[in-house]
């Protein structure tokens, strides 16, 4: 049973020779984000193993997989938030450290203490800390920029609220505004739609689509399979190892999902997806 899933669902040849895939890892070009041979391990159990991934410019990419498949791990390791055991990361064809200023990261909302003594405006200004430096003052232009970013996510009226008074969706928008303030070219979001209301989801997706239209790359860990086709152009399917990656139209298929989720993806869910995709 399991065997049949494997043989049917793993399009790229994965036959491992000396820990590397058979397929020669092509150079990443100047893709906004590319990882080669990335392995991250908690203890002695790999959370992700020997991943090759390339995320294209001017598009929205989703990282998709079941719980514990290493989605967030991939994102965090790619930007050095957690250490990697092996592998390389290229951001716009540069090593990670040289391209820091071009990356904006939106962590999971639940990863911080929202009772921290800080206001909405303070949080957005954190996105400007690198530009301000240690001794600099936040100039009028920078404050205006922060205010503008709040405006873009529909939170302009909340600038002076304490962050603990926000709803989950509002918190998520503030995090997005902070990332916008960085003026980055690559946006990495960890479950931006988890536990937010419908209005927030709409507001966030609108902002992300504008970023895409501006030629920026958006990569998001995503949970909701039913919205993948509406929101994203590119998918990366992961379950510890890479299952498939490519344009949504050709890669987000029932076969690949079955291979990613195994038995955990209910047949009914798959039916819904195929119906959503039209004639399939």
């Amino acid at each position, binding site marked *: 049973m399991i065997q049949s899933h494997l043989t049917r669902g793993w399009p790229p040849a994965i036959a491992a020779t000396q820990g590397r895939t058979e397929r020669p890892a092509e150079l990443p070009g100047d893709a906004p984000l590319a990882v080669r041979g990335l392995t991250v391990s908690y203890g002695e159990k790999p959370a992700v193993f020997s991943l090759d991934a390339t995320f294209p410019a001017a598009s929205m990419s989703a990282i998709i997989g079941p719980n514990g498949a290493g989605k967030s791990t991939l994102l*965090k390791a790619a930007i*050095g938030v957690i250490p990697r055991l092996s592998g390389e990361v290229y951001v716009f064809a540069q090593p990670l450290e040289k391209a820091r200023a071009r990356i904006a*990261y939106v962590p999971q909302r639940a990863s911080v203490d929202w009772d*921290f003594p800080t206001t909405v405006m303070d949080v957005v200004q*954190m996105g400007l800390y690198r530009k301000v430096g*240690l001794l600099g003052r936040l100039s009028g232009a920078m404050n205006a920029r922060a205010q503008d970013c709040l405006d873009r996510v529909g939170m302009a009226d909340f600038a002076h609220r304490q962050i603990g008074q926000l709803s989950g969706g509002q918190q998520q928008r503030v995090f997005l505004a902070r990332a916008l303030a960085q003026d980055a070219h690559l946006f990495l979001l960890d479950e931006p739609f988890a536990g937010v209301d419908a209005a927030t989801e709409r507001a966030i997706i609108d902002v992300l689509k504008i970023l895409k239209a501006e030629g920026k790359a958006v990569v998001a860990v995503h949970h909701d399979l039913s919205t993948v086709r509406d929101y994203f152009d590119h998918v990366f399917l992961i379950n510890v190892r890479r299952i498939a990656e490519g344009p949504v139209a050709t890669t987000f298929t029932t076969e690949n999902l079955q291979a990613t989720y195994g038995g955990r993806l209910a047949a009914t869910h798959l039916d819904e997806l195929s119906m959503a995709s039209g004639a399939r």
Partner: protein
Amino acid sequence: MNAFLQALFLQAGYNAALVAIGAGLLGFAAGSSGTFMFLRKRALFSDAVAHATLPGVGIAFILMVSLGGDGRSLPGLLAGSALSAWIGLLLIEWISRRTRLAEDAAIGAVLGVFFGIGIVLLTVVQSMSAGRQAGLEGFLLGSTAGMLFQDAVVIAIGGSLAVLVTWLMRRPMTLVAFDSDYAAAMGYNVRRIDLLMMSLVMAVTVIGLKLVGLILIVAMLIIPAVTARFWTERSSRVIWIAGAVGAAAGYLGAALSASAPALPTGPIIVLVAAGIFVVSLLFAPVRGVLAAVIRHRRFQARVHRRQGLLALAAQHPIREAYTLRLLAREGLARPDGVPTETGRAQAAKIARDERRWDVAREIHQDAGLTGRYDGLTPIEEVFTADEIAEFDRRLGPPVALGGA
């Protein structure tokens, strides 16, 4: 009382004045540089660092005596305590990063082991023939008896440096304390910033050892920051308020203890700080206990008034005694639950808003009224007057209420 006032205005003699000023300065430094330890949720870390100074004191004494010097030379003892605190600090950091032990376990282990070693060394020192060891116990609970001008100078210079570094590094430290993943993604070296926070705490501990003692210094590092949190929602202000609270506690505590012969300075300072904390806990606006109780009561009344009026509108009997009392007190209903004229009018308005909400929810099914349709949020806050007029148009003319 008179003695206290004398001490308060630095009129109780040279030594008392020196102690009061020194304690005030130390309080400021400890309060502000302890802020980020508290915000990073590592308050107990300071306690471990403080306890880890003790072996250094003992070893420094033994070394200095065996080299033929004065075992009580302050620079030597401070250097020794700083060194052993630094080792303890690195050890905690290493244990929690490299082993499966959690940070609290690492803190407990290092605190206990270092304190144990320190006590053993102090006992050895007591039995050494090369005497003049008297006074080393003062490092445990602090002593002001022999405070010298140079001690005050050490506190003033060291404390100012600690405050200065805290202020200069406030942005990276805020970022790491609030959201360390984001800080790492921006390229900040989180580990180094953590070490800096701990080093600040260590520095203040070392300069405060002689005055407050290593057992109670943690109180001066943490209580002011916790207290300050009650009064502000901005981390940058927590730094200064904590400094002020610490300074006030240090100065007042020292003056208090100088006003009577048998009051130990360190513990009195800590008790004064704790007093300020308790007052803040109870009476601070917004975050204080009293404010929270009042807010909760008001909210409860709002809920009951609303539910009572809804029941009046629907002509349901009101069974909850509190609701009845509330409505009666506000002149909305008689004690037996029959609505007054005002009550009838308000119930009608609420019933109408409920019907407006029904229409609104039908129209805006997909637009996420989540969190707004909660029974309490006035519809005027969510929709514009024009939108509400549109709901009313769909509803038709008002219906008379109460079957009249």
